Each structure stands twice: as structure tokens, then as C-alpha cells.
């Protein structure tokens, strides 16, 4: 069974190119064009790993998605799903939310710069979730 990657990004071209890379590696790819849509897909399709854009021009941006997944009861069954945040700007959560105690709550499992360094990205992803033969543990 192929591992499922959910790509949440408001740039369709970014999703298209990432999809082709992931599919070539044997991953199953789900796409969402907004944070809101991404959260819906999490509940519906139970992805194994999430690639998440930070700055999206939609009502729920990247950090909002991370926060919901990690702390809202609705998503409790998915709070362990690794999240890789991608962005074209170097802005850590500490810079985005200066002097906020809640910063710790939204730290993702990894950061990746856009455009993706594809070999490195695949290596990281493979480490977190191998493309094939994932054994689904009972949740």
C-alpha cells in the first residue's frame, strides 16, 4: 500500500510539479488549495504525511492548519502525522509571532525552502514515511 502525501498549497503549479515527483517515487498524492480544504482532506483521506505551505492567501494559513491538527479534538486521531512546512521566505514562527508563548505549539516536524531541493526533499520524506509498504497501525 502506498503512503499518502497531502500537499496543501494555494499555488496550483507548485502542487502539480510536486505531485509528479511524488508519484514517480510511488507515493499517493492528495492536494488541497487552502488550509480549510486541507483539514477536510485530513479527516476524509487520512494522509501519512503533510506538506504544508506557510503563507497562503486563504482564511486558514499554514500555522493555523498545524495548530488545528495538533490541538483540536476533531483532529486528535491525526495529531501524530508528520508535517513539513514549505515556504519561499525565511521566517521562523518566532519571527512571525514575536513574544508569543504559543509558538511552541505550532512548530512543525521540519522546514523546507521553496523551490524544493528535490533529492533532499525525497530523502527527508522517505525517512519520515517510506513510499511503499507502510504498515498502518491501529489508531
Amino acid at each position, binding site marked *: 500500500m502506498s503512503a499518502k502525501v497531502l500537499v496543501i498549497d494555494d499555488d496550483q*503549479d*507548485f502542487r502539480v510539479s510536486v505531485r*509528479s*515527483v511524488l508519484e*514517480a517515487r510511488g507515493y499517493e498524492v492528495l492536494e488541497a488549495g487552502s488550509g*480549510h*480544504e486541507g483539514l477536510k482532506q485530513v479527516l476524509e483521506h487520512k494522509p501519512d504525511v503533510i506538506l504544508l505551505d506557510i503563507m497562503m*492567501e486563504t482564511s486558514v494559513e499554514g500555522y493555523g492548519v498545524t495548530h488545528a491538527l495538533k490541538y483540536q479534538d476533531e483532529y486528535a486521531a491525526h495529531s501524530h502525522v508528520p508535517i513539513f512546512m514549505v515556504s*519561499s521566505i525565511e521566517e521562523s514562527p518566532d519571527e512571525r509571532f514575536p513574544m508569543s508563548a504559543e509558538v511552541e505549539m505550532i512548530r512543525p516536524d521540519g522546514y523546507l525552502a521553496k*523551490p524544493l531541493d528535490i533529492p533532499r526533499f525525497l530523502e527527508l520524506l522517505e525517512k519520515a514515511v517510506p513510499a511503499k509498504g507502510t504498515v498502518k497501525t491501529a489508531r
Partner: protein
Amino acid sequence: MSEVAAPDTIVVIDDDYAMRLSCSKILSKMGLRVEAFENGARGLEGVAEHKPGLVVVDLKMPGISGLEVISRVHEIDPQIIMVVITGYATIDTAVEAMKSGAYDFLPKPFSPDELRMIINRGLDRRRLALESQRGEVERALLKRRFVTFVSHQLRTPLVAIHQYLDVLKHLDQTKDDPARRQEWLDRCLKRTEELQNLITDWLTLARVEGGTLVKERVEIDLKPIVSSILASYEEMAAAEQVSLDVVWPEEALCVWSDRNCMNVLFDNLITNAIKYNRPGGKVTVTGCLSGGEVAIAVADTGVGIPEKYRPFLFDEFFRIKGEGVKRTEGTGLGLHISKRIVSEMGGSIEVESQAGIGSTFRVRLPAWCAPAEDTEIGGWE
């Protein structure tokens, strides 16, 4: 929040017991918290501990002098207001104290009213200073957010292009799929165009920061301008299966403005109306003269603009994206620039929209009437 509570504490440093006592009494009655100390060394410890908003210090004390206390308090916090107490004989020193950062001085003997007045003034000054400091911090933060935002806007298309090319070059899965390869290359071109437009719009705005977009003022009839813009988009509209319509009155629709700006304004509104439309849809431009104004409406038959987005429509970089909206290549600056042009001319721009029916942008500009020569001169003799 210590910053807010701090101004309520006053530290009094004076070696004279009676002076400490009377100052404490008067200030306590004003609702202030007072901490009094008998010399400079203890006083400085007190300042570090109590973080006062204002310090009253006697200039002539054994040990650390009042002058030194001023500079050392300001090392702790430059925003603390310093008021010095001085005898008649030491006015010169008081002046020196002011030069070294004291806010004001009280010559001995002084009345309770004088003390109260000077303290209130000092605390007001402190509040103002703190507020403006907070304002500066906020402005700096906003500016940094803005720079981050702009660089994100510029990088987004570049990232998309880079990634398509990277995948095309290295993974080459599109080798056996020329149609897909072609599609990706087309997307790269589109995104390059988007980046170009973004830079153009951005430069337009950056160049006029603080200045005006409307450079010259000449008499312009909007009818031929709008008609020629419509003509230039006929091909694009046909590709989108959108028809273009115009309803003009007999008379000319003249305004007093900049030709280039009028082109930008109506180009923005018309291209938006074509892009955010539906196949089989229509763009209708209507114009009329009413109440000394030229009113031009650009109506589309698109999905409409959800009410929650309308307040932000004319903001810099605002774009409706994501949920259920088709992909378009706007820069997010077009409507902002349009609004600026209209405002500079003393006009207005408004939007009406109905879900599933379409949106109408209404521009109203002061009409330009050529002075009628015979009435101007006053007729025949």
C-alpha cells in the same frame, strides 16, 4: 504589564527627612505609589527594584550626587522622567541637570501645588513617550511584515517556474508525454508574465510613494479610451467565450485627468471583468453624465464576490484565491492602483455583487466641462 503599571510609582531621593516625608504625603494623596530613599546609592537600588516612571531627586546630597543619579537612572531606563529639587543657590546646577537629561526642576521651597503640577506634567510626558515608542515598534513590525509579504509575492511565481523546470530537467517523466511537457512550459511562460506584471505594478506604486499617480491634467473623453481598450481585448474575450458590450450616451464623457491613468484604470476593470467571468458570459460597460459626474460601470456575469472579501478588494495584494476560485494571473495590485487613481481625481469606485449573477464596478469621476466661452466673457455688449 509592568509598562502600564510603572508610571504609578515615584521614587523620591533626598537626604532631608522632612522633604521625603512631605513629598511622600503629597504624592500618595495623588494616588501614586511612593518609595523614598535617603541617598543616591540606596535610591538607585530602589529605582532598579521598583521601576518607577518618575524620580524626584535632590541635587545636593552627600555621597553620589544628584547629577550622577540622573545619568545612572537613565542607564537603567532612559524613559524614566527625572525631576530635580534644588536650593536657590544651585540654579546653575539645576540648568546643568536639565542638560544632562533631567525633565524639570523644583526650586526650594516649593508648594504642594507646584510639586503636583510638575509631577503630573512629567507623568504625561512619560505616557506620551511610551505611546510613541510603542507606535514605532508597531510600525517597524508592520514594515517588516510588509517586506516579507512582498518578497513572498515575488517569489511565488518564480518558485513555480523553477520547480517545473527542475522536474522537467531531472526527472524527465514527461519525456513520453509531450502534451504534459507542453502544458508545463506554457504554465512557465504564464507565470513569467505574471512576475513581469507584478514587478511593473509594484514599481508603479513604489515610484509614486507619497506622490501622485495622476501626473498631468488634460481634457479626456473617456468614450474613445474605453472603446479602444474593449477593442484590444476582443481576442482575449473570444478565447474566454465572453462577449463585450458598451452602452454610450450621445454626449462626450469628459474628465480632467491623465491619459495614461485613465487607460490603466479601465484596462484593470475590463480585464478583471473578462477574467472573472464564465463561458458564455458578458461584459457590459455603460456610461453617463449625472449630477456633474461621469459615471462608468463595468459589469460582469461571473460568480460574484463573496461579501466577506469586499472590504479588502482594494487593498494592496489582495486576491480572492483558493476556495472554488479559478486560477488567474492577477498581481493583486490592479484594483488598489485603480482606487488610488480615482481617489486622486476626487472620484469614487464602488462594487456591487450578487452571488452567481456577477459584479459591477462603478466609477464616478468629476465631469470636465469646457468653459462655455460666450457666457464666460459676458455676452455681447
